[in-house]
């Protein structure tokens, strides 16, 4: 009994330093964010409880509506452009016999480049005028140069495109590991039963990665919902708020206007939306399975 007690104490002592770090960096800020959103403040000092005042003001501001819809647009485009790409890449690389390592390494390479550097690189790729890379390449095919990032209907897909460029490789590796874990005998048996290539893809490969794809889908939504410095660096939310996001609003309230409570209230809204999306999604998936 005494020994057990001693072990518990030793365990908690060892965990204490890290737990303090987690409290300081993650858990307390999360709670503080919620508390702060209900207060007025001067700089970092909370002044008085104002109920939902911050939320009301934030939501009524015209920027909010744009940011809100845009954030969903980002998510939508990232599912259209980004979700299937890693799955297809993984299936392709898994089939390749020669140079498999080469393909894997190349696909993963963009992931090691710092996000900010990637954003600046793509700023030059999308650059208006004839010397942006995209315009150079299109110019060789005879197309006139475009001012890509000033087109409000194109700006979000363009940003999502380079987000996909940067992060698809990592996801591909995860799918690839799953594909390599599929029992070869499943394919063997299916083939003996006369299943063609497409049937094998449909009845073996895809069901085997279904659960993984579901988890990665949620993670991708969470990831894309926080999109911040891609629009910050490329367009600063422009043209005309066409690429602004909720996180960008948080950033602007907090570090340009120094209105921390308003920033916090948008943060809470983001967290709630994500919580809601994840729950609804899990429900839907469960219903489908039954």
């Amino acid at each position, binding site marked *: 009994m005494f020994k057990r007690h001693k072990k518990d104490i030793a*365990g*908690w002592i*060892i*965990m204490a*330093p*890290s*737990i303090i*770090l*987690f409290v*300081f*960096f*993650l*858990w307390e*800020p*999360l709670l*503080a*964010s919620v508390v702060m959103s209900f207060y007025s403040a001067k700089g970092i000092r909370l002044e008085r409880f104002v109920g939902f005042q911050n939320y009301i003001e934030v939501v009524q501001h015209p920027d909010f509506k744009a940011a809100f819809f845009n954030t969903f647009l980002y998510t939508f485009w990232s599912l259209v452009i980004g979700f299937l790409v890693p799955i297809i*890449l993984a299936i*392709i690389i898994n*089939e*390749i016999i020669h140079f498999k390592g*080469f393909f*894997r*390494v*190349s*696909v*993963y390479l*963009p*992931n*090691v*480049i*710092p996000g*900010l*550097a990637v954003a*600046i*690189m793509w700023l*030059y790729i999308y650059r208006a005028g004839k010397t942006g*890379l995209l315009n*150079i390449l299109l*110019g060789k095919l005879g197309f006139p140069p475009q001012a890509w990032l000033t087109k409000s209907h194109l700006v979000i897909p363009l940003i999502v495109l380079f987000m996909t460029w940067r*992060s698809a490789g*990592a996801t591909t*590796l*995860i799918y690839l*590991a799953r594909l*390599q874990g599929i029992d*070869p005998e499943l*394919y*063997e048996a299916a083939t003996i039963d006369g299943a063609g*290539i497409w049937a094998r893809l449909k009845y073996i*490969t895809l069901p085997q990665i279904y659960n993984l794809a579901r988890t990665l889908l949620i993670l991708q939504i*969470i990831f894309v919902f*926080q999109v*911040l410095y891609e629009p910050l660096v490329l367009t600063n939310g422009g043209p005309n708020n066409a690429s602004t996001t909720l996180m960008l609003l948080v950033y602007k309230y907090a570090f340009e206007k120094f209105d*921390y409570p308003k920033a*916090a209230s948008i*943060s809470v809204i*983001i*967290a709630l939306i*994500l919580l809601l999306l994840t729950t609804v999604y899990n429900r839907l998936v469960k219903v489908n399975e039954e």
Partner: protein
Amino acid sequence: MNRLFSLKKDYGLLRTYDFRRNSVKFLYLLIYLVGFIVVFVAVFPIIWTILSGFKDLREFVNEPRILPKSYDINKFIETWKLLNFSKFYLNSFIVVIGSIVFAVVGNGLLGYALSKIKPKGYKLIYYLLLWSLMIPTTTSIVPLFINIVRLGLQGSFIPLWLSAGANAFFVILYKNFFDSIPQSIIEAARIDGGGEWSIFFKVVFPLSYPINTVITIFTINSAWSDFLLPYLLLNNTGKETVMVRLFQFRTSVATDVDIIRAVTFSIIPPILLFAFFQRYMMEGMTRGGIKG
């Protein structure tokens, strides 16, 4: 050509016997073609960026060419000196080193306690960690910033080091690794009278070489790439990291070619790291199964 298709393939969708059909041979060639296009798309923007650094300003702004006219490394050296990059490299280096220490020791100790000591109530911590993986942390950047300001740690590297010690993803990687170390080794050390600290540092730590390597490489990469927190803490303090400096170009008078060379400076260390340790990085990526 025929040799290519006489190979045995006993895994995946396509099998050896499928290759007897011409349509499958065609499909297989198509797969390779798509593969090479993908490689091109993945790698070309990086190569273009590096090559563009060899252009002079007029060439870069006016001429729609992919390759530069000449390759003079002195242009890079001039930009390096002009923008004082040695200083920012040094700052980033300091951030990286401190982060490694905290990432390995901090997350390692917690992972060890969760895996091998399991004190009463440890499950609560474990679930909180799993939750942390799902909850977007950037949304609480404001209160975190305020926490740091309250402690007077603004303008210092310390918060950046410490933040590496609070990485739920690393703790879970550590816990999973320690789960594979037999409990009997730990029990034996306990019977020999070792306290938990000394067991961790003398018994578990030396066995943890593979996971420590993975965590170290990941930490180097993320500490080097991190931007938002370093920017909020270090902007205009003389302690800017490479990434903070890169962001400052947005509002500076640096020319386009200087900026694109600076981008090259900022991506070379991670690319070298990847070149040497690609197997560890890709392994860690798959083992964790979560976006970094």
